[in-house]
């Protein structure tokens, strides 16, 4: 665990698209990482934000970051040998229960990134992995080739530049008519998660999904990431939740809390 903000050198940068890059950091501290955990990432004069871990080999860590706003755009300007300040890893991560034979992995957008570590781990445990990856376009099908090495992959893109032209959940739904799975794992936009929860319930499948809410402290102290109605914290009790919890989270798809704690409606 890296407890406090401290600069870590960027040793490599992978540019996936004009919007998404993966930054590789060389860690000096020895830490342990579970797939699905995240780091708090900061650079001076910008904000500190949560970013999932997309790669880890014991000393090098990969963070895949989409430029969506002020801070992520600042980070995208960094070059090799610059530094990112990180602390973590935080959160619970995905669990692979004993006796599982086959899993489906469903990622949307930058939500694909943390699933790569999960696919690798499952694979190393001889669990069969089938991946469903959805993105804006072919370039943003993150780590597409690596997922292929780990099992069958179904892709969907918004612009049809690769695979199915449309929504990744539609792809999953279609596949459900020909096959089944022990457990689905999902990370991606909230509407995708909400659809998968319904799908899981309807088809009697199990599901673990990684959620996003506003993270400020990252360690379960400040309450800014709490979910109604159970008061669960995304940063500490999550970000990954099992289906039996997910179905109870009545705020999902409806609203989230702003920095002040005011409810903000999710328009969809």
């Amino acid at each position, binding site marked *: 665990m890296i*407890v*406090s*903000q401290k*600069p870590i050198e960027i040793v490599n940068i992978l540019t996936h698209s004009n919007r998404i890059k993966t930054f590789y950091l060389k860690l000096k501290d020895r830490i342990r990482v579970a797939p699905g955990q995240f780091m*708090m990432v*900061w650079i*001076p*004069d910008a*904000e*500190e*934000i949560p970013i999932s871990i997309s790669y880890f080999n014991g000393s090098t860590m990969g963070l895949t970051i989409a430029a969506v706003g002020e801070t992520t755009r600042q980070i995208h300007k960094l070059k090799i040998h610059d*530094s990112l*300040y990180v*602390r973590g890893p935080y959160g619970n991560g995905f669990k692979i229960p004993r006796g599982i034979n086959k899993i489906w992995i469903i990622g949307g957008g930058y939500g694909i990134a943390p699933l790569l570590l999960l696919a690798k781990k499952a694979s190393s445990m001889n669990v069969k992995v089938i991946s469903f990856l959805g993105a804006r376009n072919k370039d943003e099908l993150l780590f597409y080739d690596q997922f292929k090495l780990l099992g069958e992959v179904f892709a969907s893109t918004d612009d049809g530049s690769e695979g199915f032209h449309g929504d990744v959940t539609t792809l999953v739904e279609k596949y459900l008519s020909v096959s089944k799975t022990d457990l689905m794992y999902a990370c991606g936009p909230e509407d995708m998660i909400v659809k998968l929860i319904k799908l899981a319930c309807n088809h009697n499948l199990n599901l673990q999904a990684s959620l996003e809410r506003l993270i*400020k*402290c*990252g*360690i*379960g*102290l*400040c*309450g*800014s990431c*709490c*979910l*109604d*109605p*159970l*008061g*669960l*914290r995304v940063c500490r009790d999550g970000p990954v939740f099992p289906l039996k919890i997910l179905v109870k989270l009545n705020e999902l798809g409806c609203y989230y*809390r*702003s*920095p*002040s*704690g*005011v*409810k903000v409606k999710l328009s969809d």
Partner: protein
Amino acid sequence: MSINVSLGALSLRNPTILASGILGTTASSLIRVYKSGAGAVVSKSISINPNEGYKTPVLIDLGYGYINSMGLPNPGLDEMIVEFKVVKSKKVKLFGSIFASDIDEFKYLASKLTDYVDALELNLSCPTKMGVGLEIGKIPWMVEETTREVYKKSKVPVIVKLPPLVTLIDELTLAAEDGGASAVTLTNTAKAMKIDVFSKKPILQGVYGGLSGKALKPLSLACVFKAYEVLSIPIIGCGGIYSWEDAVEYILAGAKAIQIGSAIVSEGLGIFKKICIGIKKYLEENNIDKINDLVGLAHRR
């Protein structure tokens, strides 16, 4: 062996209380913490209007405590009342914490909130926001006046939360008592900071933050001990309580109840139950009937 305690008119099922600002903005979170074993929960400090607080980073983990500069984010009075109604519908013992920039605001908040809470806690000690916390809490006459005005507007007991200024704490707590406080909470965080030597800048956007956790305990405990020698109203201890031993230290120093914040990170929400069990066992082993008989025992010579 019962470990319920009374703070004047307030009676709690046990002496452990969730500290303000810790997981305390939403109803569901406050209810969860109460269910996990706390004797009462204090809400995040509330202002009249919504407040976003500072931008991240708002937290530095020192390993032996935290420095935070949340900057009192909260959705404002109206939204909080909505949450409080939910909390109260579950029979949760709830203290509403309030902060303001002048006495009129404090009065307004008190008069609006008094119907939805079991007690009001005045936060006169936030080290990160200018003009709303420490600026009042370090000056005895301002503490007294603010307390008195809130007291007049409140139907529920008023608790005053003060900063860990050990050398001034007797005057400050006496001022709260004179103003009508039913209890004091000692203490809030200590004004603190950290600088990043690489960027050569303070890490927290608000420059200063509040020191909490283990590092704060020796100071807060000294405040409780010192205040106990002059006060007649009950003291609620707060600062770096991680275990039943820490809690008992505060009680021996003179606290009737204790609040828990930072320790939730390392000890989890089970901490309230764990501390209650520890206190019970301690009372048994020492043949002490009730917590009251333990309060202030460290003052015997």
